[in-house]
């Protein structure tokens, strides 16, 4: 089961991060975080962008799991899924910097 957990780790983190960003966006819009200005933009925008960048960095740190792999198969699959998770986090989270949050 550990093998399954390790080869899924990057994608599990993406699923968590994607849900977190979606939840933060919905909650922030509902509770008026978009109306609070902070350093030239809104508080909601800062929260979302910071969370997104942290999530991308967290996804990349999982690359060290490849060092713990016990076989070539595990190493290759872990590498591919961690990179997939990080890349997907980068792209699916990018609307936090590019689009309007609550409109």
């Amino acid at each position, binding site marked *: *089961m550990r093998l399954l957990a390790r*080869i*899924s780790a990057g994608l599990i983190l993406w*699923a968590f991060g994607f849900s977190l960003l979606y939840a933060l966006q919905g909650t922030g819009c509902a509770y008026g975080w978009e109306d609070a200005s902070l350093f030239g933009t809104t508080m909601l925008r800062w929260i979302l962008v910071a969370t997104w960048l942290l999530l991308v960095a967290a996804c990349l740190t999982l690359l060290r799991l490849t060092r713990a792999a016990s076989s070539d198969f595990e190493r290759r699959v872990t590498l591919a899924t961690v990179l997939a998770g990080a890349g*997907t986090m980068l*792209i699916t989270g990018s609307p936090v910097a590019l689009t*309007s949050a*609550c409109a």
Partner: protein
Amino acid sequence: MNALRRHRILNTIWGAPKGWRGTVVSVNHSDIGKRFVIAAFGFFAIGGVLAMLIRAQLATPGSAFVGPDIYNQLFTMHGSIMMFLFAIPMFEGLALYMLPKMLGSRDMAFPRLSAYGWWCYLFGGTILIASMVFGVAPDGGWFMYTPLSSKAYTPGINADVWLLGITFVEISAISAAIEITVSVLKLRAPGMRLDRMPLFAWYLLITALMMIVAFPPLILGSILLEVERAFDWPFFDPARGGSPLLWQHLFWLFGHPEVYIIFLPAAGVISTVLPVLARTRMLGYGWIVAALLSLAFLSFGLWVHHMFTTGIPHMALGFFSAASALVALPTAVQVFAWIGTLWNGRPELKLPMLYLLGFFVVFVIGGMTGVMLAMVPFDLQAHDTHFVVAHLHYVLIGGFVFPMLAGAYYWLPHFTGRTRDELLGKTTFWLIFVGFNVTFFMMHLTGLLGMRRRVHIYPEEAGWTLLNLVSSVGSFVMAFGFALFAIDVALHVHYARRRRRNPWTAGTLEWAMPVPTPAYNIASLPTVISREPLADAPALASALSRGEGHLGEPRRGWRETMAVDTTTGAIDHIVVLPGNTHLPIVTAAATGCFFLCLLAGRYWLSLLPVAGVVVLGLRWAWLLDWRRDIGPLPIGRGEVAPIHREAAGAPGWWGSVFLLVADGTALASLLFGYAFLWVIAPNWPPPERIEGGLAAGLVAAAAGSAGTLLARRCLADGAAGLMEAASRMAVAAAAAQLVTILALMALGVTAQPVPQAHAYAACSWALLAYALLHATIAMLCMGFGRARIAAGHVSPRRTLDLRVARLFSDYSTATLAIVLVCLLAPSVMS
């Protein structure tokens, strides 16, 4: 023991009686798998006839063939049948039949659960089909959007038939998912590491895990909508704090992964059949596994693309649009792996390959239109038009039906032991391929010209007449193709010549057994050292028949197979499987009575079949009868292993774990709904919130925690051989759960507003009901554990019953804590 004598003894142990009695009591995976496949094809035929009626209606403008009421039932039932009664059960049937054979096992992990799932599917499907005969079939579209499906707009039982019938059928899907997951993880041939499994097993493992997580949101949504319709709890009523969008979220949380749940097993068929017919090995095994995992996860991040036109903010659109486009990448990895394999090999244009080529054409077109629809501006134009109908048929028929037809022709010799010429099959292919493209390519055009889906008539001046007529003609050509396929299979079964066991010279283990396969699959279990054991050792089949593998000597009339370590494939223990029994059909009948009582509005009466199901469930578990320690037993080749009752990672424990994962997903979906309504829905905050209840909540929390601690202590005492103490702890744990139940009931009655008042109150009561149900289950588990101790089924070696009881107790307490926080937080914080 010679091979013939071994065959006779094993056949006696694993076989079922002849005639109706055998049909009713058999739990054998080959029998159940074949029944699923045949029934699914029968439902496919019914769904196909409905499609013909739809196309007859749309062939000409202003058609008076059927009126809108009947037409609504036609398209709703067509979609529901094809998704729930054909696609999922068809792959379940193939998985049940084929998996143990490919994994070098003698059966699935829970044969009685397979049979129970089969009967639930048959009874549930029959209810749905019968509703058409009585003119009360569902008519709100296969995704049953509220408020159309709410009581105000669908006052009859049409929507109830869908909600209850589909939920009944989904029991079989959850059963199969747990069955497949545990079987792949544990019931493999010795030596078959995870990275030595056939790719087909990887596809099915990932599909089954997806089902465990994807189906609970739909089941939960169906329960909530049924409760709203029956008792007026306003989960989806915006006037009282509900939201129709909650239904869409819950439905598509299931509905989009469902597309991949249907596609992945078919892709597994491709990855199995294609390299054999290309006379090479599959390229990129590890990359394909990584692509599968990526696809599985990403498929859960797309559901909102079905809701792009509901007015959600741009940022949320961006999240889901990006994920929808990205999902094409892991799919492309697989497609390129298949193309590379073809390039690398020496392909033979035999009949299954013809269907695979058809798959490539159709599926790639469907994938491309999917990427188009993932783009929000395009989707805003094409949403709910025939363009979407064309896209989904290209994906589903291209991605499922064509590969399954390839699989059907590839494995028919395995089912029947016969092989015949391919002429009729090739004619079938061309009729289906041409008919399909003529039918559905036209729909892209009618959709782009503005034709909405689900309209029963259209005006002549719209300019869609010729395209629709061509589309209808194409659909009838396709129908002839499927009819010819049925005739071809019938001819094959009855008149084809008997042939050798491995006509394709394939390397996977399903071809290492006699065809058609005996009830026990293989006389002895191989030791696997590569991904294609038969390719590496062509004489393997004969050696296994001679009993030179594991478990070659039948003993005590037991149905034995091997369980292995999940990752390494090292021998773990012997699994002794239960034999033929009436319990699955009787339990499914009791379950069906429950659903029928609800359908008839006899809610109090429905408690009777519920009690019946509980009693039958306890009987089910009780019959696993082990009153003495056995110790390690010889398994052949000089090795020994314990039986599963005396091993740590028995299939029953793992099955319980995955059942609780599904259960936890249902709770997570309910919590999502609660939070979604709180944040998004109109008419919040609620006029009336929970008042007090803190004391009752604290009593419930304390009693639940005590119940868990006592359950753990019970297990520790049982493992230490202190049976008297374990027995007392089991009684105390059950009593603690009873206190939890009473405290929760007091909390609800004294502090919560009535559930009809507002969606907040309805959600609170739903959470409370969830916690109550699980405290009751934990209490029953501990009571059962006490009875098992008293009857001598538990010893320091045999603690499986207590470990499972502890698992349910732990889960109950963990979810109780979550529910109490959600219920009491508004009161404490205000």
